[in-house]
């Protein structure tokens, strides 16, 4: 039972509704895109940029892959497909939603997002 001491259980602390951490930065947005199947390959989790790095701005697929993922997400949500994490895009990411990923292929995206066990190869065993 949930612990209480008062006869009328008035000391039952209503569990403070945990609030989901708003998606407000690049890292959270990358997690979102990866978690819900918008990233075709694993989106490399970049550390937040710490000023200009010696080898110049980050190049290559991660920036482009991320922009492409954002663009795909923006298109289906009828947002300007800028590829940039603008406020409207972040607001859409924060709307109440179902936890099932939005697109195929599910397994790759699911396999890399944190907290999900590695993809089980082959047909799913029937026995629960």
């Amino acid at each position, binding site marked *: 039972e949930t612990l209480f001491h008062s006869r009328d259980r008035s000391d039952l602390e209503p569990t403070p509704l945990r609030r989901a951490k708003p998606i407000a930065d690049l890292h959270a947005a990358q997690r979102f895109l990866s978690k819900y199947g918008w990233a075709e390959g694993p989106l490399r989790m970049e550390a937040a940029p710490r000023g200009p790095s010696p080898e110049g701005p980050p190049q290559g697929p991660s920036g482009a892959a991320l922009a492409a993922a954002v663009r795909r997400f923006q298109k289906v949500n009828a947002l300007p497909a800028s590829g940039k994490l603008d406020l409207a895009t972040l607001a859409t990411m*924060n709307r109440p939603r179902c936890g099932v990923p939005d697109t195929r292929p599910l397994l790759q995206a699911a396999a890399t997002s944190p907290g999900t066990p590695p993809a089980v190869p082959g047909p799913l065993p029937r026995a629960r």
Partner: protein
Amino acid sequence: PKRFLHMLPPGPPQQPEAASHGGGSRAFSKKTLTWRLVGEAYSSQLPVDEQRFIFRLAFRMWSEVTPLHFQEDLGARGAAVDIKLGFGRGRHLGCPRVFDGSGQEFAHAWRLGDIHFDDDEHFTAPSSDAGLSLLKVAVHEIGHVLGLPHTYRTGSVMQPNYTPQGPAFELDWSDRKAIQKLYGVCEGSFDTAFDWVRKARGRHGEVTVSFSTYFFRNSWYWLYENRNNRTRYGDPIQILTGWRGVPTHVDAFVHIWTWRRDERYFFKGHQYWRYDSDKDQAHTEDEQGRRYPRPISEGFPGIPSPLDTAFYERRKQLVYFFKASSVFAFDVNRNRVLESYPKKMTEVFPGVEPRNHPLRSIDSAYYSYAHKSLFLLKGSSYWRVVNDRDQPRGPWLPPNGLFPKRSISEKWFDVCDVHTSTLR
């Protein structure tokens, strides 16, 4: 945690073609699925009975548009239950996917039948317009378990983001067709079908006539909304609820309607009942002091029983009774069978196409005011009878000829059974 290892979100669809149109893939091969709200995972926000009521309704809504039946199973071992629902917060129920607190992710569903609701969300009953409608979220997640993916189509219950539930949350045409792509359409024979004609007085005293279409099967019935191409939301309903005094498994309904007479009869076995449309119940005794139910042989001398079906031809003022391969034409004014009857059904209703005829034992002879045509229904098929409007286009068509058979489900959509446990 092991329990969920193989419960990853839907893997590559089993039927590649299903993936091509993004329509998902069928998740179950059996017709009746069991479900349970697991005892260790009730929500703390709604009474348990209300949680179960809402889930029962959510399953029923899918059952009303698919051949699937859903039954709440509180007795079987957990592993034997097909779909298990539960509420949890944060790390919950051994699930690898942690909930994030109120806001954002409110629930998720696993292909092999587990549905989890984040109890940090504010779930509410259908009557409330605050919070997240538990009914709408449950219908969405059940859609996933049945194999439907997300879609961004406006109005679909399978949109990934929650949209506040309108006053009448229902499954729209496209969601119905999407799930029927996976599980097929609803087929099956009817005991009878008929249009119930109502007369009413308009504002200026004029008589208006309207009709409602009904399909009867076993102990339940549907009202069919012709203009919406579907049955009434929430049907089927038990006959004893909507038609007091009418028996189940009826054989026929006949509405005898002349200038002087307006009588409605249900037939079953060797008896018939007269229905009082004013009081909305079957007569026990009518104005002539006749008590009901009455033997068919008394009210319709020369007509055999039990019948297959019957219909009333208003212009000729004849009731056509069908039994096996014979048809009896009964003159309601002289209260007797016409001399030249009975006749073979193939003689009265000749097939337009060779070897395309019900031949005998039809389920219903249904005159549809919506289609202005007579249909002979048998099993999952119907034959439409040639009428006056067909003749000019096809002078070669025999009077009362039968066009080739078609599937009932192509004309009347989504007339689906539900599990009898949800009929109460």
